[in-house]
């Protein structure tokens, strides 16, 4: 194993030089306040970055970057490390010129189509809620077999933020909607792809769907849809339309490119499932995880993230023997609906190979499947919605490898 940065063994002169020789920061004067009006992480944290997976896409504007889950704590994803998914590149849009239009698929469905400015939207009643956003294609590279080395690449198309925005229902009510006929809602972006996706009106009526401008206390980041995006808790990221410019209420689903050609799940019988939107119960151990090396035998805190698009987590179990035996993990409060939950379990590594897994159960009682259970139903060509149990092999060397079990 790689050397642990430790004060032992004690050098012959009776102490750790990092203690005996006072460092410059203990004997000098540091930097002033507001060195940066907007601060940044330590220079020693430069390894913690979002990254592309080489070869996954042919261009970088219709592509993905993955959040470094192996280096994150708690449940909030720093906005600078939020995963990215663009279809036609990202933009930094002037918010004073951005508009939101609301209309109907015919004149009877929405009585008064309207236009809103950001100033106006930000006057309306807003809420702030913690939710995860996961791309429907997260873990997609792993459907067939092991393809990538770390949890950044296996699971890093997920992030979690405190979002702030106006419940879409409030905006629709402003325009006068026929909720009996208008059971489908189209979101449309302002970027080149002008991304469209259909949502069920039920989700809007629940009050959960937000027209959001805030993320982790500040405005959305440009990469994540500044100045306006949809927040659709529990639903795959592609529906959280960025650079939101228009909402249409209709009496039929819209058959958008990303619900007819992509974000469709190929089943073993050759049929494509369309409108598969919910992100089902899922979890992953992030520490220790693939591509890491344990520094020593002894105590470790196994820790990871769990989530479900159907509500709160009920429990997470962890196995260190590849699923033969399980122990119930601690869930870190607060456990919120359609939000990441951090779990942990004490573990003492005896130096022998171990197979670490986590298995989440949500409040509906849905238990996360193994690869065998998942493939028995869906085959291995779905691309989307892989929520199988992840296995990490801890080798005797301390190195952790991504594996799949038979």
């Amino acid at each position, binding site marked *: 194993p790689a050397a642990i940065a430790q004060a032992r063994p004690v050098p012959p002169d009776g102490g750790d030089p990092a203690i005996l020789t006072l460092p410059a920061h203990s004997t000098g004067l540091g930097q002033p306040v507001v060195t940066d009006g907007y601060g940044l992480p330590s220079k020693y944290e430069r390894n913690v970055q979002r*990254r592309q997976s080489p070869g996954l896409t042919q261009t970088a504007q219709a592509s993905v970057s993955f959040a470094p889950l192996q280096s994150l704590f708690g449940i909030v994803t720093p906005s600078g490390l939020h995963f990215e998914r663009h279809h036609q590149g990202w933009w930094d849009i002037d918010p004073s010129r951005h508009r939101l239009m609301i209309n109907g698929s015919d004149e009877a469905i929405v009585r008064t189509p*309207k236009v809103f400015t950001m100033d106006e939207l930000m006057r309306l009643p807003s809420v702030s809620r913690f939710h995860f956003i996961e791309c429907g294609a997260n873990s997609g590279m792993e459907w067939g077999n092991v393809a990538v080395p770390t949890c950044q690449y296996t699971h890093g198309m997920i992030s979690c933020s405190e979002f702030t925005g106006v419940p879409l229902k409030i905006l629709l009510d402003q325009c006068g909607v026929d909720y009996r006929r208008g059971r489908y809602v189209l979101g449309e972006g302002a970027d080149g792809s002008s991304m469209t996706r259909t949502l069920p009106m039920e989700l809007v009526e629940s009050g959960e769907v937000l027209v959001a401008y805030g993320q982790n206390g500040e405005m959305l980041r440009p990469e994540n849809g500044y100045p306006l995006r949809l927040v659709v808790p529990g639903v795959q990221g592609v529906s959280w339309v960025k650079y939101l410019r228009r909402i249409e209420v209709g009496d039929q689903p819209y058959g958008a490119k990303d619900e*007819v050609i992509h974000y469709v799940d190929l089943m073993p019988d050759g049929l*494509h499932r369309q*409108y598969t939107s919910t992100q089902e119960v899922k979890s992953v151990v992030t520490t220790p995880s693939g591509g890491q090396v344990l520094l020593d035998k002894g105590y470790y805190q196994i820790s990871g993230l769990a989530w479900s*698009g159907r509500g709160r987590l009920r429990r997470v179990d962890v196995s260190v023997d590849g699923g033969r035996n399980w122990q119930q993990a601690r869930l870190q409060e607060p456990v919120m609906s359609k939000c990441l939950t951090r779990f942990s379990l004490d573990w003492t590594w005896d130096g022998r190979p171990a197979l670490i897994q986590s298995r989440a159960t949500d409040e509906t009682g849905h238990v996360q499947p193994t690869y065998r259970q998942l493939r028995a139903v869906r085959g*291995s*060509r779905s691309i989307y919605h892989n929520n199988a149990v992840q296995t990490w*092999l801890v080798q005797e060397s301390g190195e952790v490898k991504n594996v799949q079990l038979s």
Partner: protein
Amino acid sequence: QAAAPSAGYAGIGRPATAKELQAWDIDVRPDFKGLPKGSGSVAKGMEVWEGKCASCHGIFGESNEVFSPLVGGTTKDDVRTGRVARLTDPGFPGRTTLMKVSSVSTLWDYINRAMPWNQPKSLTVEEVYAVTAYLLNLGGVLPDDYVMSDRNIAEVQQRLPNRNGVTTAHAMWPGAGLGRAARPDAAGVACMRDCATEPKVASILPDHARGAHGNLAEQNRLVGAQHGVDTRPAGAA
């Protein structure tokens, strides 16, 4: 019937004008609601394609350079049945756009809003009809002399190779209108002791691919209970 607009937030937002709606309400649905009147020929489509599309998608729509191939993998028989036979073959490698698309409106709508990729929304209505027709012609769906229009697009729909290849019979639509399954189809078992599992490693990252994502030591922070493993090729400094 549509409710009266709520007056709770009077003065916030104003009615959209007809011109504004026309400028932004561009979506086209599977029932062709939203489709502008017009037409375009396969012949004209070839012109558009070769001028504005082929550089990225290849002369036959088969290029994998900037995106996966649009055309290929469908047969005359698929056009007849509306099911792409190759989708049942787990051995078939990629999936082209034409193998998957089940509604022609989706092609029309998407090309109209998003293509060419670097100049979206620059095509005329005629160009969109024409180049959509040409794409389908490249895929063997439409004959060389076809002129596609708002009047015959429903017929074109009836030729799409994968028009019958889709389903919403699943539990993943969070509304009542689509999706007919009540419960998730793939679920685990909450066993805790001596579970019926053979923990045999069936797939492991091959050694030669261990470094395909760069040096993992540089993808973990410098301190922590675990460090990143050094995956530089042997001999690298």
